[in-house]
């Protein structure tokens, strides 16, 4: 078990290191931020002063070491626009993003999994076919199309829901729905196939054969086993919560991290983009780690293969 946990921790650390390096390489080597921020007409001494102030005149490896040091001391740099620490700007926006993503995640779980399990238990029925079709439609519609269609219907034509802003909880309805529909489709489909696979296993036949009630077979034999693959996809969803907010927040002018990222990218605000990149990657890696550890707990068979 210790070995299993250590391998996973090591892999998570390596991944974080790779993301940190990626952020540095891409953001520092892709152009001269001094020129970009000050404009092409800026006098040379102003550019030089700017570069000295941000350490951009140092050799790349010196910049890299300084960068690593600051990351490890929790210093993610200062926004070149607002002159505020990048991490503060990001944390300031975090609650707004969570206001959308957490309800959206709950909707995905509370609708997607039961619907998928129901479809699996009533295979080939009318409901099952409907679920499959809706699930496919749900996750093939990109969120920006879904969001705009919802705005068109509920804000423009019916005029019942606001199309943007963050003033009241009512403003959160359309973004939350937009964000959750794709995930509901994916989860429904995934739970359905996981459940179908489990229901075909010999131990389910054994459980039925020994005379267990159907409900007990489903609840205590099928569901726990189907949970293993479902946990994987849920973990992935948790990790990509913030990333998934980018498009939706842009559509609905929601002042969260996703919108901050798009704005900072357009403004080439290095420190903020880098900080968001690291926050998102950390969220992904941590939730992957939790999933893998949960996996080890849910499925003891995996310990044997943990070393691979």
């Amino acid at each position, binding site marked *: 078990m210790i070995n299993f946990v250590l391998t996973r921790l090591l892999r998570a650390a390596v*991944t974080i290191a790779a993301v940190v390096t990626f952020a540095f390489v891409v953001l520092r080597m892709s152009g001269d931020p001094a020129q970009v921020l000050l404009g092409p007409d800026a006098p040379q001494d102003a550019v030089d002063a700017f570069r000295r102030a941000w350490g951009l005149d140092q050799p790349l490896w010196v910049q890299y070491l300084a960068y690593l040091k600051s990351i490890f001391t929790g210093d993610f740099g200062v926004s070149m626009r607002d002159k505020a620490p990048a991490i503060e700007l990001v944390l300031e926006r975090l609650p707004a993003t969570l206001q959308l993503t957490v309800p959206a995640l709950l909707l995905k779980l509370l609708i997607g999994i039961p619907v998928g399990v129901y479809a699996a238990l009533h295979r080939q029925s009318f409901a099952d076919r409907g679920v499959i079709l809706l699930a*496919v439609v749900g996750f093939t519609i990109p969120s*920006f199309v879904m969001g705009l269609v919802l705005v068109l219907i509920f804000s423009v034509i019916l005029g019942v829901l606001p199309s943007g802003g963050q003033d009241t909880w009512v403003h959160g309805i359309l973004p939350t729905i937009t964000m959750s529909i794709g995930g509901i489709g994916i989860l429904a489909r995934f739970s359905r196939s996981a459940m179908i696979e489990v229901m075909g296993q010999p131990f389910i036949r054994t459980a039925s054969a020994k005379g267990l009630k159907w409900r007990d077979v489903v609840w205590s034999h099928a569901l726990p086993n189907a949970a293993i693959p479902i946990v994987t996809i849920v973990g992935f969803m948790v990790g990509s919560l913030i990333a998934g907010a980018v*498009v939706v927040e842009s559509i609905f002018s929601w002042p969260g991290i996703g919108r901050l990222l798009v704005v900072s990218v*357009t403004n080439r605000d290095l420190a903020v983009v880098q900080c968001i990149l690291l926050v998102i990657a950390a969220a992904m890696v941590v939730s992957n780690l939790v999933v893998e550890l949960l996996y080890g707990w849910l499925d003891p068979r995996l310990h044997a293969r943990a070393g691979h």
Partner: protein
Amino acid sequence: MSSVNTMNERPSAGPATGLVAYVRRNVALSVSLGILWLAGMVLVAALADQLRPYGITDMDLSSRLAAPGATKHWLGTDELGRDVLSRLIQSIRVSLVIAFGATIISAVFGTALGLAAAQFRGFVEHLVLALADFQAALPFLIMSLAVLAFFGSSMVLLVCLMGFYGWERYARIARGLAISAGAQGYAASVVQLGATPARVYLRHILPNVASTLIVSMTLTFPEIILMESGLSFLGLGVQPPETSLGNMVGFGREYLTRAPWIMLAPAAVIMLTTLSISLVGDWLRDRLDPTLR
């Protein structure tokens, strides 16, 4: 694509009489419609120049924001009086070309790395797997946003960037399949006969694992279309005056209340295309993936 056809013909070797009867018996209606739609899209993309009634930047200032159904403009016009249908046709071409190019790059790149990992094992394998972990850990949209904004968006960069989409899946699949194929008799025997590693992989192992890789391609293709549309929607993908489906939706959004058709036409095309690919891809997977039999 030739391998797809040969694979498809195999089950039809039965008592099928005529293509139409075969299709009617073996292909669901939704899949047939999907194939038809996709064929139509490919045709539109190929003949874009001939089909387009107007140039994509031709402005008809006297009929700005004209509603669909107008005699001169079937799908209406946008805020500058540009013909929506013409722009839609060009967008289909641009989006399909990007997605197609990117899918090929991603498949070749990922498969090559996966086979390299299987051949060399040790350090190379760890490196490839670490890179794959990294790619999977960083949401692709976020990575592309960073890269595009900092390098500025150009068509070549966009295709190359999209070419990184999903490579880690091919790499993992190719590595896994190649390792298990390497343990089988046929690979061992050609190695014994003195074949070079390149020959073993390209002539013997690759054809045997191709069907699974092709299925992954049908999965990544619509995802790349969605990814490119998303980036273009945010204004960071295809840049004007060139147009793409996401780009049209993004600009059409400004006129959602006054001229929803600018946005609805490309949105419908995106939905129908990805839906079709999804349906056809599932069908192909059921057909081709031996592990599902």
